[in-house]
């Protein structure tokens, strides 16, 4: 797995604990290049499903929509609210964080 990613995850451990102790159901940190799960509090199959559906399809489409409307703009984060819970998705350069609450 990416060395830089591991460092970042280790450095953010207290923040992750704070987030998960609040009202969240879980989180997934995915590596963009490999489209694989880097870190997750869900079981592997659900995490992979979330990555495949959300990150792959929806985030990419939302990013291209924003850039289509204004080429200088870019997507900072995405919140998908559903009846049961809410997905907070933050895409970055090398990774993407998805939190379910």
């Amino acid at each position: 797995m990416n060395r830089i990613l591991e460092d970042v995850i280790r450095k953010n451990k207290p923040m992750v604990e704070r987030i998960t102790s609040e009202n969240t159901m879980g989180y997934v940190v995915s590596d963009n290049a490999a489209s694989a799960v880097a870190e997750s509090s869900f079981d592997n199959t659900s995490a992979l499903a979330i990555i495949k559906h959300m990150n792959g399809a929806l985030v990419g489409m939302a990013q291209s929509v924003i850039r289509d409307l204004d080429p200088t703009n870019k997507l900072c984060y995405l919140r998908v609210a559903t009846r049961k819970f809410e997905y907070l998705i933050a895409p970055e350069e090398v990774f993407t964080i998805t939190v379910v609450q």
Partner: protein
Amino acid sequence: MSAEVEEMLKRFQTYKNIAGIIIVDNDGIPIKTTLENTQTVHYAALMQSLVVKARQVVLDLDATNEFTLLRMRTLTHEVILAPSDDFYCIVIQKPSD
């Protein structure tokens, strides 16, 4: 019905943060808008595909769930997409934070 809608639109326009509101029906045709025409049509067309995709994604992840709101935060503003039975509503606002 449309009197209430007009009233709501007028109320929303007094909020300083809101840059525009577009109401699009299921075929992708904007029925009410506060922005100019070319921009409106552009937004409506793009959001149409996004709404369909988002609905599918949520349904795929959990068949009992349904997608209620989509918020995209960009550098310059925030776009909120609220789907409903016969139409969906796009709000563009300058973020307050």
